């Protein structure tokens, strides 16, 4: 599967990473190189195989319904690049 420039732009948009037009050709080549290499997986017969999602196959432990976290507004806001009092501030979404 080969990526064209429009697809690379679309993926970059989905990933919210700006890619300048000038960077596009090299990026496209690198991505296509990687994708071409992983095509080899198509050789494998995966008929009837259940996908694995993690090395650990245990069932999940559950937590008790008690409030034992939060209540730390200063700490969760302290690292914010832009904060307005007790809020995080971001540029507006253009509607």
């Amino acid at each position, binding site marked *: 599967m080969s990526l064209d420039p429009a697809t690379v732009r679309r993926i970059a948009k989905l990933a919210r990473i700006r890619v300048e037009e000038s960077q596009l050709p090299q990026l496209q080549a690198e991505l296509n190189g990687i994708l071409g290499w992983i095509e080899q997986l198509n050789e494998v017969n995966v008929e009837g195989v259940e996908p694995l999602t993690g090395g650990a196959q245990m069932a*999940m432990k559950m937590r*008790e319904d008690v409030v034992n976290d939060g209540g730390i507004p200063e700490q969760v806001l302290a690292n914010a690049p832009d904060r307005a009092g007790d809020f995080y501030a971001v540029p507006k979404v253009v509607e």
Partner: protein
Amino acid sequence: MSYAIEGATGAWEVVIGLEVHAQVISQAKLFSGAATAFGAEPNAQVSFVDAAFPGMLPVINRECVAQAVRTGLGLRAQINLVSRFDRKNYFYPDLPAGYQISQYAHPIVGTGVIEIELADGSTRAIGVTRLHLEQDAGKSLHDQHPSKSYIDLNRSGVALMEIVSEPDLRSPEEAGTYIRKLRSILRYLGTCDGNMEEGSLRADVNVSVRKPGEPYRTRCEVKNVNSIRFVMQAIEAEATRQVRVWEDGGAVVQETRLFDSAHGVTRSMRSKEDAHDYRYFPDPDLLPLVLDAAWVEAMRADLPELPDEKRARFVRDYGLSPYDAGVLVAEQATALYFEAVARGRDAKQAANWVTGDLFATLNRTGRTIEDSPVSAAALGRMLDLMADGTINGRIAKDVFEAMAESGEAPDALVEKRGLRQVTDTAAIDAAVAKVLAANPDKVAEYRGGKEKIYGFLVGQVMREMRGKGNPALVNEALKRVL
């Protein structure tokens, strides 16, 4: 087909599916230990997990899982003992991780059903496709600053149940009834408080139209409608819009829209070029959710009597009409109140007083049945006083009003205001005689054949007796003389 949009080319059927997001009642959030209570200071109920700080990991809250199971059981739905969490990936500032933990391929609850009762007395079974658990997002405030949005993550991570209906609804009325019924069930179960104003219940509405007999056409989704009234209006507005599009020779485009309640129309949500490629995949920070069958069965055994069962029992045991029973069971508190009044008494009479005078009083004073000015015991006692002849129906209304105002017990009020019914035949005869003497023309008219005058005469006698005449005896006396 009852409800239809009348277009230029004829009648169009409206097909509706609802996705209801219900906030789970729990102390802590779905995957973190921060509190869920409404109305806290901004970002005061946020853990590092909720704020998606580096290295943070989700751990699931057992009670949230239990609430989802209880809800599934209440919807007579299949409980999936093994389910899985998936990540739904998209960027928005109120979604700190850049993904929402949800359930896509393997939800915790499968197909179920909700029965709705329509105004004409018919019932319809509306299919529930699935129920799954997911995280709520935070809140964005767009009106605090000219160029910035402010983000509060208190709600980020609160557990939501997304309840998806089959596209079985066919009118705004059905949709409204469905939401009311679902809310009622959730409140009975104690799994969601159903408060649409506070946002603990939200609806996304899927609407399409078609000519009768056709297969389904393209649908649009109207997101985040936060009142039943708006849901019904949005359906009509969107269905009307779609009919116009089709009849103009165009095609409805599948898209997400918002309901503009001020103008009564739906609007397309812009800035969606990437059309929501959510890239769902199993969340690798979580393991499969495996439920112990015994645990599920214990919850099933502990379910309260739900609205449908209660309604059926009221019809069966109290002889109420399905409609009246339906009104009484809509809220569990109302049903409890009613039963406290009806037990050992005339159930229909009790029902009338509850749905009539009591509801009117509550509406007027802005109270709820939980803090009713007239307790069930008091109302019941008043009915006893009517049954034993101490007061008549007319006086009872006054007593009720007085109880509502003063909170006093009915016995005390009757004594204090001297409201006992008069059964003394001599007094009644005297009153009758007095009235007839004062209205010879009316008496003549009655004797001349004008039957309707009788009511006037009875009323006059009752007025003369200050309402306290025993109606049966008054009638008997009046008829005897006339």
